[in-house]
């Protein structure tokens, strides 16, 4: 076996690499060659391919998401906007709140419990990485038909996974949704959101600066999780003797993550951290390239020092591994000892794996040889972007013409009663208590409102009663009928739900679940929904602080309904003034507002 070093790549320009199997298009691979001025090494190819994937690079959605910035409303509340791990808003009294919603759709279909559990784990790490203590989670879910046998496989596992992970982390679950529709049968949507609270001065960014500062990897050992692509690289190209068994599904360890939360917060409290990044999809490839490209210098990483769960992993696989419950911190040399001591206190494995360098190269070494030498910006930020073709679907008019007015109206009281009962007993309207009762909503002792309320509310400051509220909403059917208005309806509903508690809506996060962007019909839905959301946010004065795009949610040719899910965050200066949903005392009057 030859190690594919940078030197080796220079001397063997004609070696064929499996760029296609790794998901790169021909012109994208050519672009990598241009950037490097040579062919990439296997490890470099691993990094580019995973970082330039739709999931990590937002290559199909970026051009449209720009509107969220371009049309952003004037606000003083936004402390950190789109682009970081999660956005941060000012909620007053020196407190800041970070929140975000993300999808874990496909993994939850393959292994419902673990897929959903690791979805919660991922979003919570985004929150910790900002410097915040996570204080609550929410879980907007979309499942196939309630009576379909496969829903019986997927839904209980998903609910148990979200509960199993969130409960074990000690995060109250204060809201979410559960919608059944046949369009999600082969593509359930498992979105998870988290909220964190911090003081303004504790905000941390994913940034490696200060030459000589150490890069510390801490948390779980690295295993062969989710590295199908990298295994192709390792086995087909350079080493046919590697074991081919690489799990596509990650198993979560919420206990490890709870320890990560505590030790990270303790390190923040002692001001030991210069920059920090969680390891999510794309693992070390993502963490190192993003930390380096956001910072002022370069970075040098010794891959041999990464603690492994499986000693047979190749360097490409280590770079691509999606093992859960890992974080990467940049720490000044004088503070490394203290940082490691805090990790030891919490039984968390921590290892110095590299350092920040002068210059602007990301260099990665394996057995003393250089296997990566790239400009990190080209990996993390300068990936390809596409303005994919889109067009209003030919069937849109017919769909809109088929409106509810054509349905039979009840003529008698009995018919009305029967119809009302049908609506009330439909799985989409019936009580969700069997789900929400599996989630701890009391832990941390700050829950002011949780299910069955329309928005969850958490107390932030015990002395003053300052609190935050959150609601998530989305309606795939409305959005399919009219993507522009449907996205705005989701926004408006979540906004109202927050406002109805007495909190003032401040900002939103969104999770945009759509089919394949290569289908012009779907792309049109996406473009319209984003435009609708951006316009709506401008009108309501609530900036988009971040979110997530999940594309390719389809089974064969059939895409899911376009499903933008919107989370609105609000602030209330005293939770004692919250308005719960239930009727108050006898004699109170009932008003209907609006038309």
């Amino acid at each position, binding site marked *: 076996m030859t190690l594919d070093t940078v030197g080796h790549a220079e001397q063997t320009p004609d070696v064929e690499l499996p760029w296609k199997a790794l998901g790169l298009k021909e012109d994208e691979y050519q672009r990598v060659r241009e950037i490097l001025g040579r062919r990439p090494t296997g490890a470099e190819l691993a990094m580019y391919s995973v970082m330039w994937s739709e999931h990590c690079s937002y290559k199909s959605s970026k051009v449209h998401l720009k509107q969220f910035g371009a049309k952003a409303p004037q606000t003083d509340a936004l402390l950190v906007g789109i682009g970081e791990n999660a956005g941060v808003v000012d909620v007053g009294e020196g407190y800041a709140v970070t929140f975000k919603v993300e999808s874990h759709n496909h993994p939850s279909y393959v292994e419902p419990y673990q897929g959903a559990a690791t979805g919660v784990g991922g979003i919570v790490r985004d929150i910790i990485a900002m410097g915040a203590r996570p204080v609550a989670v929410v879980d907007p879910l979309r499942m196939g038909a309630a009576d379909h046998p496969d829903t019986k496989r997927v839904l209980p596992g998903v609910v148990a996974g979200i509960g199993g992970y969130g409960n074990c982390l000690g995060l109250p679950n204060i809201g979410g949704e559960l919608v059944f529709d046949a369009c999600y049968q082969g593509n359930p949507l498992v979105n998870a959101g988290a909220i964190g609270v911090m003081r303004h001065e504790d905000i941390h960014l994913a940034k490696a600066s200060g030459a000589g500062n150490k890069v510390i990897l801490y948390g779980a050992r690295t295993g062969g999780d989710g590295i199908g692509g990298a295994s192709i690289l390792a086995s087909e190209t350079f080493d046919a003797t590697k074991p081919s068994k690489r799990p596509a599904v990650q198993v979560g360890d919420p206990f490890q993550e709870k320890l990560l939360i505590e030790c990270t917060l303790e390190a923040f409290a002692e001001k030991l951290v210069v920059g920090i990044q969680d390891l999510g999809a794309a693992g070390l490839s993502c963490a190192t390239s993003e930390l380096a490209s956001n910072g002022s210098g370069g970075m040098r990483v010794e891959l041999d020092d990464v603690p492994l769960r499986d000693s047979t992993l190749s360097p490409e696989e280590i770079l691509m591994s999606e093992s859960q419950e890992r974080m990467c911190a940049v720490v000044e040399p004088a503070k490394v000892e203290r940082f490691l001591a805090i990790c030891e206190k919490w039984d968390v494995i921590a290892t110095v794996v590299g350092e920040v360098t002068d210059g602007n190269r990301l260099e990665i070494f394996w057995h003393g040889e250089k296997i990566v030498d790239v400009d990190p910006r080209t990996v993390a930020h300068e990936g390809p972007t596409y303005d994919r073709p889109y067009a209003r679907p030919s069937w849109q008019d017919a769909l809109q013409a088929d409106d509810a007015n054509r349905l039979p109206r009840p003529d008698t009281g009995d018919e009305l009663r029967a119809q009302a009962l049908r609506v009330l007993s439909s799985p989409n309207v019936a009580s969700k208590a069997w789900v929400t009762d599996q989630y*701890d909503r009391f832990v941390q002792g700050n829950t002011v409102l949780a299910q069955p309320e329309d928005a969850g509310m958490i107390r932030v400051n015990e002395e003053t009663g300052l609190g935050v509220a959150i609601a998530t909403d989305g309606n795939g059917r409305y959005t399919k009928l009219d993507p522009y208005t449907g996205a705005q309806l989701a926004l408006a509903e979540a906004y109202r739900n927050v406002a109805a508690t007495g909190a003032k809506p401040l900002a939103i996060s969104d999770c945009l679940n759509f089919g394949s962007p290569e289908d012009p019909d779907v792309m049109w839905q996406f473009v319209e929904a984003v435009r609708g959301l951006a316009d709506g946010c401008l009108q309501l004065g609530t900036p988009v602080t971040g979110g997530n795009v999940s594309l390719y949610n389809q089974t064969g040719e059939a895409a899911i309904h376009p499903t933008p899910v919107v989370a609105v965050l609000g602030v209330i200066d005293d939770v004692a003034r919250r308005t719960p949903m239930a009727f108050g005392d006898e004699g109170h009057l009932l008003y209907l507002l609006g038309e």
Partner: protein
Amino acid sequence: MTARIGVVTFPGTLDDRDTQRAVRVAGAEAVPLWHRDKDLKQVDAVVLPGGFSYGDYLRAGAISRFSPVMGSIIEQARAGMPVLGICNGFQVLTEAHLLPGAMLRNTDLHFVCRDQKLRVETSGTAWTADYAAGQEISIPLKNIDGRYTADEHVLDELEAEGRVVFRYAVEGEAADGYGNPNGSLRDIAGITNAAGNVVGLMPHPEHAVESLIGTGRTDGLGFFTSVLKKLVDA
């Protein structure tokens, strides 16, 4: 001088900070205790709070029970110091054999979180003096391994000696928090040792000490005021 009540943190403990708050709300001083330290910092009583210590891996409470702090707690508990185990803390106490029996997976196999009605069976413990026997209280319950079990003769002995401290109140509508939520034998929610200083229960009094938060009831405060009175009077 007020009483000092220690609150233990194991890796994976979740309710330590709320328990400290409950102790403060009751007017005592909360003293954090760390699982690796044998030193109990001269506290007058100890609470083992809820959570998933060591992820509940192996069995809930099974790994924590071997921590250094537990060595000291077992010793002090035998000497009469008041000890309260809530949820995971109760599981630790049974694993440590300070209380008899064991906790199993809930009969319906699901985690259950709800506002639970309990009947106080005895006020004769260090932690329940402020309640009246027969009183009904409502506090949050949240667990997946909450089914209390013990041999028939152990159960008989517990009943005969008046050591069943709380039962799930089963009379009434299930939706209102009545009913046995997990299949516990004889509806047992909490028990005490023979001396009455060690109490364990599954529901969470520390989540029910402020009128705005959680269920909005303060039925749990009595645990902390009971022990405080006992300690201050002593």
